[in-house]
């Protein structure tokens, strides 16, 4: 099923006091096609997490609406619709492993499907299936989630979301706090979900290396607005925008820019990964 996500002039805010409101999203209009793999970047407080939350109905628009596969999220959306939205749009919060609670992995993963009325036997099947999907073996089903490593815990938490069989997955800094191996595992999983299942994936990150390696497209946010939505190479080519947004460069490009300064001329093309950079350096005769 095609699950386009459309933001129509969405404004959203958090009530931070009896009168005071903090504007989180400011007139966002955006159309995200099905099957995209998008990194959302921007400085702290730019509205990245809020953008994810409105897709899942955790934060309702004050004005405008979000349309996802025939469902509409606006300030008066009823609970039943929100429940349907949340099944289609799986949301993985920051440090999702902190929400693991059940005595064993199986019960933890089954919790979501059971809440949506899936019969126990079927929920258990789903648990097995999703556990395999996230690359963990079925023999941890009976283990306490708290006995697992950080990377494993996070994958179990993601399995709990995947068990709802969402078509869109939104994640708030999925790699943060994991060691490089754990991070790599999470992103390989996301890449697989995107390529093999055609799942639309949006992830928030501060790490431009994650953007360079794993995203297709990038959304750049500032002060609750979407400033850029397009191909990652186009973003990193746009030096003015990068500077204005105080965005970092991926390691390879940062190194490339320092090198170009040293040699006083640009290399033939921009490199986002060390693989690309090594090849360009060799071609251009610098190594």
């Amino acid at each position, binding site marked *: 099923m095609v699950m386009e996500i459309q933001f129509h002039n969405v404004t959203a805010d*958090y009530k*931070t006091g009896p009168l005071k409101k*903090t504007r989180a999203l400011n007139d966002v209009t955006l159309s995200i096609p099905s099957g995209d793999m998008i990194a959302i970047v921007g*400085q*702290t*407080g730019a509205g990245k*997490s809020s953008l994810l939350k409105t897709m899942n109905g955790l934060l309702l628009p004050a004005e405008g609406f979000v349309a996802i596969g025939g469902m509409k999220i606006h300030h008066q959306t009823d609970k039943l619709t929100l429940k349907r939205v949340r099944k289609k749009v799986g949301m993985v919060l*920051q*440090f999702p492993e902190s929400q693991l609670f059940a005595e064993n992995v199986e019960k933890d993963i089954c919790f979501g499907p059971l809440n949506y009325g899936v019969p126990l036997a079927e929920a258990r099947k789903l648990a097995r299936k999703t556990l395999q999907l996230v690359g963990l073996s079925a023999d941890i089903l009976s283990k306490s989630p708290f006995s697992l*490593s*950080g*990377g494993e815990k996070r994958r179990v938490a993601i399995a709990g979301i995947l068990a709802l069989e969402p078509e869109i997955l939104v994640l708030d*800094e999925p790699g*943060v*706090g*994991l*060691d*490089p*191996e*754990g991070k*790599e595992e999470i992103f390989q999983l996301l890449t697989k979900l995107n390529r093999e299942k055609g799942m639309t994936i949006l992830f928030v990150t*501060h*790490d*431009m290396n994650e953007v360079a390696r794993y995203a297709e497209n990038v959304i750049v946010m500032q002060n609750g607005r979407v400033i850029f939505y397009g191909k990652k190479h186009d973003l990193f080519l746009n030096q003015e925008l990068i500077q204005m947004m*105080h965005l*970092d460069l991926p*390691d*390879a490009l940062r*190194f490339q820019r*320092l*090198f170009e300064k*040293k*040699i006083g001329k640009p290399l033939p093309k921009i490199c986002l990964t*060390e*693989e690309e*950079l*090594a*090849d360009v*350096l*060799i071609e251009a*005769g*610098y*190594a």
Partner: protein
Amino acid sequence: MGDAVIEVKDLSFRYNKSEEKAVLSSLSFTVNKGEWIAIVGPNGSGKSTLANLLCGLLKPDQGTIYIKGKPLNDETIWEIREKMGVIFQNPDHQFIGTTVQDDVAFSLENMNLPYEEMQRRVDRALRQVGMAEYREKDPSYLSGGQKRRVSIAGILAMEPEIIIFDEAFTMLDPKSRRELFSLLKEMQASGQLTMVSITHDMEEAALADRIIVLNKGKISRIGTPGEVFPETTELLAPFSERLRRLLIQKGRRLPDKYMTETELIEWLWKYNFTT
């Protein structure tokens, strides 16, 4: 030299005392005054356990930690904690004040400082971390990165001799992270502050004077970044090291040693003249 601020001797720890497998086994190392040490290693290597032991939140099964020559135990812990600040992974767990400045001041309230002194320290700490304009805000409504800065300000205001960072910078955007690194470098330059970073970030580790690599609860390597990086796995190596290895893999002749980014750029630039 040899002015040890932290001395860890034969340290072992298990969470489950009935299990054989130790989380940390027989660790020994020394951190000198003014030194910046980075402790790296995969998840589950015992890094955070070590941080908790260093600040006295856990008690060792075996071995002793000496802070400025004093063994860390129930009698000395309060005195030692005045000298030592710790910043943990998740800043939310450490917020108490209803405004940013109250939260930073909270850490000082136990120190019996005069009001003016408190104000001076809070001001300075908030300016150092770039959060002065948020002083009246409620910390619980700040973004993840802003919260982290406030928690760092709380520690800086205490003017500690030792700061332990337990994955403290992971949540920050790269620009603020680099700003904080240079702030730490500046603070370290006084020679008074001893720092221990527990981190996955190899760019952070590259700034340290020495790196300790933990693996399965044991020290697998201690040394300067130059000594440690050439021996680490692909995923743990900083960018310049990965690029150097990749170029060698592609049949190029590069020096057989770790090079910082500046050194590698210099080398590539010169290579161009020799061909």
